[in-house]
């Protein structure tokens, strides 16, 4: 009886330990910080290379698209602080000057590098539904 209890405890401990360890390591890779532009740009140093979800507003008339490609350059700002961003891919319909966006990606030497499908526009909808441009990604 005693060995049986010991076995059960050992199994549980090993399983939980393994799962917990795996979870911890994969969490470290998988998480993204949700930040506003001004929080990051006030002191950009420590944020370089970290996975970020950056919230801000597209600067009016800042969107540039290279002809015949899907390469975009634009700026986003919040509370006076601005960051340059580059992106290649399809943008949501609501992505235009002044719109509220959340960008997934990393901060690099030339500004914010947006990951593929990483532009999510928040629409100023009258709706309760908060519909990002590319839901679920």
């Amino acid at each position, binding site marked *: 009886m005693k060995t049986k209890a010991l076995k059960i405890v050992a199994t549980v401990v090993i399983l939980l330990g393994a*799962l917990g360890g795996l*979870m911890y390591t*994969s*969490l470290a890779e*998988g*998480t*993204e*910080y*949700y*930040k506003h532009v001004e929080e990051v740009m006030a002191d950009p140093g420590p944020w370089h290379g970290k996975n970020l*979800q950056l919230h801000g507003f597209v600067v009016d008339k800042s969107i540039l698209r290279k002809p*015949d*490609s*899907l390469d975009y350059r634009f700026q986003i700002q919040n509370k006076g602080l601005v960051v340059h961003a580059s992106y290649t*891919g*399809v*943008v949501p*319909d*609501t992505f235009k000057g002044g719109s509220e966006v959340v960008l*997934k990606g990393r901060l690099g030497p030339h500004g914010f590098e947006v990951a593929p*499908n990483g532009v999510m526009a928040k*629409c100023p*909808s*009258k*709706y*309760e*539904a*908060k*519909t*990002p441009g*590319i*839901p*679920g*990604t």
Partner: protein
Amino acid sequence: MPALGTFILLAAFVVASYAIAACVAGARRRSTRLVESGVSAFYAVTALMTVASGVLVHAFVTDNYAIKYVQRYSDTAQPLAYKIASYWGGLDGSIMFWVFLLSAFGAVAVQVNRVRHRELIPYVVAVIAAVEVFFIFLMVIHKNPFSTFLTPAPADGAGLNPLLQNFYMAIHPPSLYIGFVAMTIPFAFGIAALITGHLDDAWLRAVRRWTMTGWLFLSFGLTLGMLWAYEELGWGGYWGWDPVENAGLLPWFTATAFLHSVMVQERRGMLRVWNVTLVIVTFFLTIFGTFMTRSGVVQSVHAFGEDRELALLFTIFMVVILVFSFGLVIYRLPLLKSRNELDSWASREAAFLANNWILLFSAFFVLFATMFPTLSEAVKGERLTVGPPFFNKWMLPIGLILLTLTGVGPLLAWRRSTLGNIVQQFFWPVVAGVVTAVALYSFGVRVWSSGICFALCAFAAGTIIQEFVRGADVRRSTTGTDLFTGMVGLFGRSRRRYAGYIVHLGIITMFLGFAGEGFKKEEQLPMKVGQQTTVGPFTVRHDALRVTADAQKQMVTGHVSVFEDGKLLTTMEPAKWYFAKREDEPTTEVAIRRAPAEDLYIVLSGFTVDDQSAVYAITVNPLVNWIWLGFGLMAIGSLISLLPESMFAVAMSKVPAGAATTALLLSLLLPAALQAQHVENPQTIFKAPRTQLEKELQSEIICMCGTCGRKRIGECTCGLAAQMRAEVGQMVSQGKSREQVYEFYMAKYGSQEPLASPIDKGFNRLAWLVPYIIGGTGALIVGLMALRWTRREGADATGPAAPVDDDPARRQRLDDELRDLD
């Protein structure tokens, strides 16, 4: 009208509260009359909620914009069907819809079980009524769908979100709600059993059936959600680990776990605490899911927005549920002792136990990851999020383990499997799996997760086929019928087991579809007119961009030709629609070419009208359709297992020997004979149609060769099309009408498939009506019950002070005593 609605809600609140009080008091005092009065009050809630729903739907249909809720979710231009669907399109209405469904389901459950589980019914009613009271309370004090404008009412409504104006979205929420709501009923039975202490296995029967029903609807709702995401959102996938979808998945995991572990309790008397816990947790997760989507705790595509007060009310309710339920479990622990111990790890109960742990772990993992942003904000003050890659990293191996167990579980014997029968049972399935793996590897498949998944699918499917063949073989030798009739006969003998296998087959098919994701190909690029690109086996050419408009919207449509091996396969028309009231939120109309092997999925993601250029997102999605097919199998399996025993027995006894085989062979042969191959025949001479009708019919009937991509017979060059043209010509010259020609082809192919467009679009949308039919049936039952009571005795609602004299035993005794006195 709105005043009437509010009044009905208040009345429902009072009546439901009375139902709780009367039932609990009646059960404690053993007063049948009091309990009956409570039960009738419970039915009355159903009637009231039906009327309230009627009032709200009426307001939507008649465009009564004095009601805020109607104004916000409807407008005059909306088609009637979407006006009705707007009922559950917003927060307030969805809560009311929830209560309505719960009251209807509750009434049916009580009606069905009132004799068999007489001792449980008062508490079942009390629990369901308590849940109703909570939700009605929410509406009355906080989210009244009938609240009106104090200022003059606007002339028109804001309109339902265009994203929701979609067939799947209209039926997806109701089916999810039905799944959620149905889970309340097993919970009610569980709590009633705990309170009364009737914890023998009898209550499990009722609980199992209702969990099964809820499970089926949940699966249906989740599948529809995937279809909606796939067809409407246009990001090329079907499951993005969105919090709201996750909320539906959580109780699905625990309900699945329960449906397996309940068998262990039935067979071996084990896991009794565990089963009760699963029932409670499943119900809790349905409430938690509702809370998550409705209080703005997590961000999501279709969450309803932030609402602190609602969050607080929900939190209180959830704490009460947990404390009360688990308090009862602890109180009843002595009655829940296990009757047996686990004999060996090589046994079916051990496999079920492993399956339960993994399902439960999945539920908690998904819960944790979904709540992670909220949790991290609360703990660290910093919002950290986890994306779909994190979910996939964990759920992929978990899914594969579950798939393995799907195969292993049924092969192990109860109690203990000997080495001999393990070898005997596993040999062929393992061979199937290994052969598949080797074949895939030698064909150059190097996507590991998908490859392993295919091999496991072959293994699990192998076990099921083996079970069917062996079972049918035994049956053939005992009853002397042939193999196929024997196979059908298996369902008569042990229906639950073989229906379960069908469900498993459905799950395996779905996994095939999920594995296809590993071979997905995507491309996003701007295209000029005439430019082409190649994605997977397809070459796509941008032909033109056109702008058109109708009453509701402006439509920008890209015209695309698709080639495979240099031959024109089909043309596709992805579009963007700009609804009049929401020009800045266009909807994406995805163009999908479906095929069993892979879907070609084209989205128009941007355009320039000046030079007619367009930006396309082109995705090749292999095997996606197997997911939908898999759900179909799952539904068939569940329905077979839910059919009433008696009905099934009668049906089986009426089937003459050999009939099944004949039917099966015929159904296999017919399409084979009709599916003549498409043979390209360039020498085809197109005979000019002789009459106008013949000409029209040539463009209304589709060539059924199955390989030309549904070309019209007037255009297709294969032999079958020529034959069909000749048939049409002959029928027209015989003076047959268009309808008769239609009928001829529908009869020949057994569906509307040969028609270029379905005859009656309305019919295909019949599914809309499902919630209403259920509601209507509930109301009807309530009405009939009411009629019966009124006929039997004047009034039922005699209230708490039921006259004691009416107790027949007491009257009898009184009579006897009086007689003695005489």
